[in-house]
């Protein structure tokens, strides 16, 4: 393969949060025909379409700091190409989440726990330990906890990551 080709297309780095059910970055960019149906069907308008000028053009992404994904799972049903696969919301993989215990209000003995209350997968993704502090367990990375976190800067760190075959 030519070198310019490698330079442009080698690293399929995950710079975006993709909608739930998205395939691996390489397969998503291959199959997505940029029809935008996931965007139109999204009831929260979480899904946006990437701008022109890169290989990501036209593909759907989510910005959790503006509008997170609430895991309603409407978008995989309308995807015509199978870029978003129909799966249950427990099996979604969008990102990885970490609680920063130094700034988290709950860990500072304040009864915030907003992330726990708002989590779409309550008691599965975020659980409360014996001291009523939020702990991340089987998180799918939808970003709601990141969105509702009241501290500035946010006490939750979220990075896009998908571990798909």
């Amino acid at each position: 393969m030519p070198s310019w080709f490698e330079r442009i297309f080698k690293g399929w780095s995950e710079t975006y949060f993709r909608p739930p059910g998205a395939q691996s970055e390489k397969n998503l960019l291959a199959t997505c025909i940029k029809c935008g149906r996931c965007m139109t069907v999204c009831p929260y308008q979480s899904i946006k379409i990437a701008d022109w000028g890169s290989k990501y053009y036209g593909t759907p992404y989510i910005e959790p700091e503006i509008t997170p994904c609430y895991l309603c799972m409407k978008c995989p049903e309308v995807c015509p190409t199978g870029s978003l696969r129909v799966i249950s919301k427990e099996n979604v993989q969008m990102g990885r989440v970490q609680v920063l215990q130094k700034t988290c209000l709950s860990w500072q003995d304040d009864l915030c726990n907003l992330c726990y209350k708002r989590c779409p997968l309550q008691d599965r993704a975020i659980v409360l330990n014996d001291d009523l502090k939020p702990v991340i367990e089987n998180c799918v990375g939808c970003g709601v906890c990141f969105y509702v976190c009241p501290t500035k800067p946010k006490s939750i760190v979220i990075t896009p990551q998908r571990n798909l075959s």
Partner: protein
Amino acid sequence: MKLSYQHYRRSIQFTVLGLLIAIPLLNLLKIDAVQGILCSIGTANYEITCALGALQSMLANREIHFPLLLSASFFILLAIFLGRVFCGWICPQGLISEGGDKLRTRFFKSSCKPDSLPRYHIGRNFLLSLLGAGLLATFLMGVPIICYICPIGIICRELLQGTMLYKIGGEIVIVMIIFAADVLVARRGWCRYICPVGAFYSLFSSFAMKVKRDKYSCVKCGTCQRICSMGNAPMKDEIVKTCINCGDCIDKCPEGALSFEKPLRFRNIPIKKVG
């Protein structure tokens, strides 16, 4: 008043354009039973997908996705039975190009001649090699290359984003360039010599409905070949695969010598000169 093909065609074209704005508006009001643009439109169970997009998606992923084959077959069947009606009756870029064609006909009257057959073959080979190169690049690079520059998708996506998110992206420049080139460089140049979508549908149109000339009532006035924006000459029976079945020549023929022939007549494509 007798309704001509152009009346039907314009109403369908503007209905499609209106739907491209109305469907996102309905989606904004949380009525999302139907959603989508011309790349893919439908409900959750029944959908119509752009056949070239579907082919690219499967080529790039190197895997056959069965629902995609089904949803892509609508436009293919349309092309098999009715020819390139997608270009003439549905495509929003076709509507814009027709506007450019009107402007061009007004400004450069002398340059509106039909293609001669050798010129048509050169253009046709160029068109098909562009399509082939695009599909090969799609297969090798693993991304649907043609979708990145397809003006039909760009227009639909801009209407969608403009309605739902109130923003217009920079890619609309491609549509403007095509419009300017249609006015200044070649008559409907994009549709005739470059557009991969039209080229793809024309591959299936061999036995489709096409314009037929009644040679006893034809008086060879040459109106049809002046009017044809795709460079065909119905007067010489040179109706080739650039024909988009728009019906303009049928409307404008003063003797009524032209008509649509039914699809699936198994015969050779008339690339021979008669008379």
